[in-house]
């Protein structure tokens, strides 16, 4: 491999463009899962497996609040960075990571207390598929944030506004919006 100067080093915006295109595409998977869920649910005769009353909504509601506020903290982190306040950026960034981790913890607690499994009919299947796939995205988001946090200690790396930070924060808002739809579908719309 020879080190040819590629145009994309001259146009640093390519990465962000590519990432936005990726997110648009990624949202179609969720769209597919959501519409599949809605179709199966409206067509079901017995949606809930025997012995299951419905979903408990308090833990998830707390999780929702946590995730939405983390969208706020990541925004603050970005603002700190654009003002050149690297310490503030790291503080809010870390706080966002902590909120994300707490969300995952809450999800795990909820899962461990449930009466049904992945194979308990379509109800169990769709529930674990949706929450699991979303949880995977939350975990990815936390991992990406960790990566960016480490990078922020490399001198000069954050001089001109790092795109990685922008992309990660975009991703985080995306995960947040998906969760809100998911919450409405799974926990608010309980009656079939």
């Amino acid at each position: 491999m020879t080190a040819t100067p590629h145009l994309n080093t001259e146009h640093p915006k390519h990465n962000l463009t590519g990432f936005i295109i990726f997110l648009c595409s990624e949202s179609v998977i969720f769209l597919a899962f959501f519409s599949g869920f809605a179709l199966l649910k409206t067509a079901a005769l017995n949606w809930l497996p025997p012995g299951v009353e419905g979903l408990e909504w308090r833990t998830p509601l707390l999780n929702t609040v946590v995730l939405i506020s983390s969208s706020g903290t990541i925004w603050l982190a970005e603002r700190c960075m654009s003002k050149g306040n690297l310490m503030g950026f790291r503080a809010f960034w870390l706080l966002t990571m902590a909120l994300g981790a707490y969300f995952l913890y809450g999800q795990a607690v909820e899962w461990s207390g449930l009466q049904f499994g992945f194979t308990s009919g379509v109800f169990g299947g769709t529930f674990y598929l949706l929450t699991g796939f979303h949880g995977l995205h939350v975990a990815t988001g936390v991992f990406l944030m960790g990566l960016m946090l480490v990078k922020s200690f490399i001198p000069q790396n954050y001089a001109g506004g790092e795109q990685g930070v922008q992309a990660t924060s975009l991703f985080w808002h995306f995960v947040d919006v998906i969760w809100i739809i998911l919450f409405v579908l799974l926990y608010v719309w309980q009656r079939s």
Partner: protein
Amino acid sequence: MTSATFPPSPPENTSWSRYFGFNTDAKVIGIQYIVTAFFFFLIGGLLAMIIRGELITPPADLVDRTVYNGIYTMHGTIMLFLFIFPVLNGLNNLLIPTMIGAPDMAFPRLNAVAFWLVPIFGALLIGSFFVPGGPAYSGWWSYPPVSTQNPLGHFINGQGLWITAVALSGVSSIMGAINFVTTILRMRSPGMGFFMMPVYCWTALAAQSLQLIGLPALTGGAVMLLMDLSFGTSFYQPEGGGDPVLYQHFFWFYSHPAVYVIILPVFGIFSELFPVYSRKPLFGYVYVCLASFIIVALGLVVWVHHMFPSGVAQWMRNFFMFSTMLIAVPTGVKVFAWLGTIWRGKLRLTTPMLFCLGGLFNFVFAGITGIMLATVPVDIHVSNTYFVVGHFHYVIYGAAVMGIFAAIYHWFPKFIGRMPYEGLGKLHFLLTFIGANLNFLPMHPLGLMGMPRRVSSYDPEFAFWNVLASLGAFLLGVSIIPFLLNMVSAWVRGPKAPHNPWNAIGLEWLLPSPPPEDNFGEHVPTVISRPYGYGTGAPLVEHQAEIEKQLTLQEASA
């Protein structure tokens, strides 16, 4: 910008070894894609020969019935996911950067990763021939409940490998699509607005947008299928409250647009080549470009026409019948644009032009049977018969594969730097054109007579047309020989190609043949007109004459 340092010198590193490693140059990746794709084309073609060999006589005498199921499933899957998509991605890699004057793709490393996934999932798919129980046998669309059976109970089974391979193919194609779209949107040369772009880039942009919208749905659906097959969920199992038709929606939401992913770039190839070999500007450039995106929009809302017999609501049937017929309009616009281009042109019947004309002929024929199929009553009558097999092979082999051959002959001199042989090329065309029509035309009467697809034995009353079809298939098999001979011998010792052997207009023809690794490098010319100024003498870029003169000088001194 000066053009004094232009043109860049031809590439230095031309060793063979770079084709076998992780290389980030789009031109290397393009050739890797195309060669890999043709390797799988031979395997898929061999399977097709076995199918037609079985069908030359009415009884099932050549292969076992269950083996036959595996063979047509793998034939369809290999041809689509390991031949057609990779070969088109290969063309995209070669053509998009050079046509828009970019040094490379936007994300060269992602590009290489996307390519290397192809041999990996190819190996998975071919490997499924050797697992207990054999390869997947539920047809290339793998509908449940057939595809969620696992009679032998092995965790690694043909169907599981099939789903994994298709999901990986989706990942690879999405990576590719992100790259192509970003490159086209952000890396065009100075002066090249959207309505100055070559039509091929328009069609590639349209096709890749479809990949981005459709593929995730298929991948999601495939993940759920794998869960059902291997982990005991019941998304598609009525016993657990699931719905097998849901899978069909996921599958066709992607797989119908997939046919436009295949045919749109071929429209692009036609639109590039007809003007070159008719010496006339492309007729109706703006309409041809816009029609691509109308096809994208409509292509996303026609998928249920594959499910007319699957128990969908009547309003859906009506709606999707209408939308399917509507799509004939933008397609017709293109056909008339090409006819308008050829009309009264000074036709040069070179190999690429012959493939284009043959492809256009077959495409028009397939369009007529397509409209027949769009009509619900006809579709329900001939669904699952050979009529459908005939229809889509006319599109895929008759139009798309012929268009791809045209593109290969047309751009071979540019990217390999040597001229393919015309005689062998014309022989290849003749065998392909006769073979394809002899193979696929008889499938239409067979279907109307009621011969079902996916069977290895049939009533003797169908024998006549089947013998014809099989002879055509063997002719197609033979047609590959002059092609391979031509490619290999031209690559090794063909006459050196000048920078513009066909007198074509386009940025890629202002590069040496083969182009240097970073194409124009820093000295991207400024585009001042559309690349279709045939017969008008309008220059494509600033300092055109100077650039041409230097390229010719460079060639003379080489």
